[in-house]
């Protein structure tokens, strides 16, 4: 008998101790993951995500400390080396001014990354706020903002860039970024507006409103987290295209201007020498393409992770 009771007690004790552990175990497996946790869980399983993130990380580090991998000075050039091909110590060769192509390519990352980040942050903030507000409140605010974005839509961005930048005689990262923000926000505003309109009809928003939440709380706590996904995806891909746009504008002679060091400027001067020195084109063009590709791939990966419908 005593043995029996003992075992019963032991069993119940075992049940008591293992009970919470068991529940915790179940929790770990089936804990409801939020959209963001789920996306992160998904991303960690994708090699594309790691590769593109690593490339971007490397790029940012190089943009901040170019001296880490390039010892020379991008503006210290020897004309005697003009158009010389690759040699030991200078594997990428020289450009027409006798500058080391490798050094210039490394230092050129900064302008591209700066334009990309500044304009994307500007476009994202302006577009998300204006698009979000017009989607949420509707009415006359929506009507006015939609018409304004229609107007900006009427101008192809490259055309507007050439006209605007040649008028303001710009040539710095600030003017180029300002322009991209000015003409780029309506696109994001439309995306944000659509996302907010979908989100504001959801039950949880109605519930929050019924509980007496004000506009600010509903927008920030309930709508923003749920409408953010398309904004983030679009912004990531747009960052790449903005970098490409900066290079195109610099190529046309209205973006950044020498003595600024940028891939666009280098590609532009290399294109004039393509018959004599094709090596000049390869490196800045390659760096630019890899950068744009990395942002597009990252955006794709994030979209796949955030939008389970596409799987």
């Amino acid at each position, binding site marked *: 008998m005593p043995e029996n009771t003992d075992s019963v007690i032991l069993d119940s004790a075992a049940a008591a101790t293992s009970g919470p552990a068991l529940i915790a175990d179940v929790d770990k497996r089936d804990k409801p993951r939020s959209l963001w946790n789920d996306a992160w869980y998904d991303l960690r399983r994708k090699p594309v995500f790691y590769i593109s993130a690593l490339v971007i990380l490397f790029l940012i580090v190089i943009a901040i400390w170019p001296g880490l991998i390039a010892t020379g000075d991008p503006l210290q050039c020897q004309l005697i080396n003009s158009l010389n091909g690759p040699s030991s110590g200078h594997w990428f060769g020289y450009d027409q001014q006798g500058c080391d192509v490798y050094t210039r390519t490394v230092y050129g990352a900064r302008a591209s990354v700066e334009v990309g980040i500044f304009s994307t942050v500007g476009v994202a903030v302006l577009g998300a706020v204006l698009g979000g507000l017009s989607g949420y409140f509707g009415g006359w605010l929506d009507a006015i903002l939609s018409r304004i974005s229609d107007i900006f839509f*009427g101008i192809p961005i490259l055309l507007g860039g050439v006209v605007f930048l040649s008028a303001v005689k710009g040539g710095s990262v600030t003017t180029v970024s300002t322009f991209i923000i000015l003409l780029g926000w309506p696109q994001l505003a439309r995306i944000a507006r659509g996302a907010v309109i979908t989100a504001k009809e959801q039950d949880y928003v109605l519930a929050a409103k019924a509980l007496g939440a004000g506009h600010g709380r509903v927008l920030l706590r309930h709508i923003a987290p749920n409408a953010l996904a398309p904004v983030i995806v679009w912004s990531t891909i747009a960052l790449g295209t903005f970098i490409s746009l900066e290079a195109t504008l610099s190529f*046309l002679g209205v973006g950044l201007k020498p003595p600024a060091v940028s891939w666009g400027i280098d590609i532009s001067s290399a294109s004039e020498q393509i018959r004599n020195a094709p090596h000049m084109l390869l490196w800045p063009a390659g760096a630019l393409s890899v950068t744009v590709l990395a942002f*597009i791939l990252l955006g794709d990966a994030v979209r796949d992770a955030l939008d389970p419908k596409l799987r």
Partner: protein
Amino acid sequence: MGRYVIRRLLQMVPVFIGTTLLIFVMVYGLGDPVAAMFGDRTPDPATAAQIRHDLHLNDPLWQQYLIYMQHIFKGDFGKASNGQPVTELLGTAFPVTLRLTIMAFVIEAVVGIALGLFAGLRRGRFFDTGVLAMTLLVVSIPTFVTGFVLQYLLGVKWGVVHPSVGEGAPFKDLFIPGLVLAGVSLAYVARLTRTSVAENSRADYLRTAVAKGLPRRRVITNHMLRNSLIPVVTFLGTDIGNLMAGALVTERIFNIHGVGYQIYQGIVHNNPPTVVGFVTVLVIIFLGANLLVDLLYAVLDPRIRYA
């Protein structure tokens, strides 16, 4: 349908005014057209004042804009700084760019939709992966790099085509420039078609079509393509404007004397009437293309009813 067209046309009016005003302000408000006429020299103050008076530059900007618009509706786009009427430049440049744009548009639509369709039908197979990888590559390499490389390889090194476009811009010279201009959009069209086709291939109406024994060709053209092309048509329509703007780069590479060339010359030589005139016409084309897309919807998708 008729009422819808009228409503859309009326909606275009404020957009047209806003867009042209924006361009007008950028060119006349931000720059100084008189200083630009004299280049690096400082103009004689009396002469400058006279020019300012003649060109209504002393009036407020909105008044200048109204005067300009009045002239445009009379068919007068002003004169370039060498005295040539802008309408004459428009007449010589637009046909050239139109040919280039048509070339690019046909390449983009035909190749893009074909690639997208076959990739979408063979999802996950080798062809599909190939198309995806190729389009990614095309999108990430800037247009002007592709342009120069193709011009160098095909035109200069191997001598397959003319490296620059000849007098009158014949279509055979425009193939490579058209391909370069279409490149990025082609990639988008292919991806868009692929996604759309892949989505629709699981639709009920498609299963029904197969089940009732329709031949495969009919299922694909009548049922799948017609439904899958709706987002593609939107993209193609809005892309006409981008193609014409993209000609700015392509025309520069291949030395084509079209719209992009004229706008570029107008900017380099500080010639506001040329720039504003060309951009205004481009905006009209762009808006017209958007209208056309909305009307095409009705043909493609009878579910969309216009009140």
